[in-house]
């Protein structure tokens, strides 16, 4: 069963959330922008890790769903100036696309699954690149407004400036994190782990393996969609490279960096990803070589990621899963 957070951890998390809410009081707009990027990548990576860490499926097509969320949100905002509609529309679109493609993708596992998701992701990329009338081609969609968030009969909030929009990103991200936490500690999350550890054992126990994988795939796509939808109004412009397979590698690296078998791994990883980038680009324009080196070091020596190491140090009583998953014959 999932371990309840200890009291010390609870205090820490409460302080962190409070700090996040107070952040705009002290931060300059660059830090706010960076914080939003981190939150967005956190949501993106949490979804990815449901597939990778919990279900054992390495997808290289997540950027496709991210792009569906972003383009969906952007198209709606360009037509109807209501952020609520934009976010919901983008997320729902990503969820539907993920569900439909998921039906096909979960027929495979391992390398064939990775290749299949790569192919579908690149199909979405080529649509974004080539369907000029709808997606703007390689110029992308420009002038996406940060329109007011309007839930009819309930509330209307202007989000035009960066501080206001920060709160939208923060609240949506926190809700997503909470949702994912509940999810992975529910029977669904445990069943996914059981399937990852032994597909045939789960099958014998009567688990409809494919259906569970499809659910995980859809939720991962949904989370990618949330992240993408949040990005569009932040950047005001979106272009096809967000759908390219090399963009799919970002949540992969963030997750790997933070740790794949600890719930908060992807979040810590997203934070480290942007911090490392921010620090390195101050010294050199070649930051990818360092990122590459970090990936190599992590894979060679620290497959548990940073957070697992911390958890083992700070909470020795909490067992983290052994990292070496053997290759199935």
């Amino acid at each position, binding site marked *: 069963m999932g371990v309840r957070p200890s009291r010390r951890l609870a205090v820490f998390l409460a302080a962190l959330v409070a700090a996040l809410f107070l952040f705009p009081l002290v931060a300059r707009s660059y830090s706010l922008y960076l914080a939003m990027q981190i939150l967005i990548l956190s949501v993106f990576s949490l979804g990815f890790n449901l597939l*990778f860490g919990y279900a054992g499926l*390495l997808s290289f097509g997540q950027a496709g769903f991210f792009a569906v969320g972003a383009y969906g949100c952007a198209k709606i905002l360009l037509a109807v100036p209501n952020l609520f509609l934009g976010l919901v529309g983008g997320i729902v679109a990503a969820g539907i696309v993920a569900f439909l493609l998921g039906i*096909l993708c979960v*027929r*495979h596992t*391992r*390398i*064939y699954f*990775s*290749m*299949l998701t*790569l*192919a*579908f992701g*690149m*199909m979405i990329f*080529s*649509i974004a*690149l*080539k*369907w000029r009338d709808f997606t703007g081609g390689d110029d992308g969609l420009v002038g996406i407004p940060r329109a007011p968030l309007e839930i009819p009969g309930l509330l209307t909030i202007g989000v035009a400036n960066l501080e206001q929009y920060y709160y939208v990103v923060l609240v949506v991200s926190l809700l997503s994190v909470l949702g994912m936490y509940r999810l992975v500690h529910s029977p669904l999350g445990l069943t996914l782990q059981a399937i990852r550890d032994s597909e045939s054992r789960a099958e014998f126990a009567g688990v409809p393996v494919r259906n569970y994988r499809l659910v995980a795939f859809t939720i991962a796509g949904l989370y990618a969609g949330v992240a993408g939808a949040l990005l569009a109004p932040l950047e005001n412009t979106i272009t096809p490279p967000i759908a390219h*397979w*090399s963009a799919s*590698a970002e949540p*992969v690296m963030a997750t*790997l960096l933070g740790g794949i078998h600890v719930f908060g791994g992807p979040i810590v990883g997203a934070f480290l990803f942007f911090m490392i980038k921010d620090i390195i680009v101050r010294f050199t324009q*070649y930051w*990818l*070589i360092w*990122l*590459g*080196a*970090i*990936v*190599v070091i992590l*894979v*060679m020596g620290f*497959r548990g990621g940073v957070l697992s190491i911390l958890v083992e140090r700070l909470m020795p009583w909490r067992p983290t899963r052994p990292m*070496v*998953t*053997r*290759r199935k014959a």
Partner: protein
Amino acid sequence: MDSVLFQGLIGLSMAMYLWLISAGLTIIFGVLRIVNFAHGSLYMVGAYLAFTFYGLLGWPFWLAIVLSLLGTGLLGFVMERGFLRRIYGIDEAYQLLLTFGFILILDDLVKIVWGGVFKIPQIPAFLDGAWSVFGRPFPVYNTFIIGIGVLVAVGLWALFEKTWWGRTVRATASDREMANAIGVNVPRVFSGVFVFGSMLAALGGALGTPVRVVAPGIGATMIIQAFIITVIGGLGNLKGAFVSSLIVGILSAYGTLFFPVFELFFIFVIMAVVLLVRPQGLFAR
């Protein structure tokens, strides 16, 4: 009609670059069971090395190619011995990730050393010019590429079917434990195959130097093409890789001519359909 055939011939020469790069990928997957994301980057390194020796230093074309193969082979050796070898036992996802790390490193390294896009050097004099095919000028260099591609195909066939090394490699590919038991030095075969595959990628890159633009990041483009081809031909199936290189090369030559908008999309549709309907590849026995 003639223009259709002519376009096919252009596609055929494009197909040969694809064949050289996917042959290496296929052999490495077939034996080591590793999908090498960095294979496209090896192609890129091969091109940059050949450019250095031939374009910058003005050394003979052949020598430049040989040196580029040796240099890239050495790089492949370091990648296999220093890194991949240590993680054969674990989940293949990590092997993908490791080779992805190599892409990032090699891309930036190329930028640091060579500073971006290079200027295409002259085609060597003995391969320059064109002859008339279907009433149009067809470059001699393209003919040369087609020749090399066919030569490599025949050479690989002979290597794997007729030589002792080839037999050892095939034995290792089909059952590495049994091969080990009968005295095959499996780790050495793995290194040898990886280096050999790296050199094939480098050959593709090096041969393209006088005609194709290479920039940092070309690795990511080439590896996707190679993935498409190896998936269509069947992962690890060399004959399949040759045939599907021809198909993809020629189809995209026609695609860019007739439906430039959908070409990219349809190639990925083909890839997905093959994965779903015949994951073992179109040409599996």
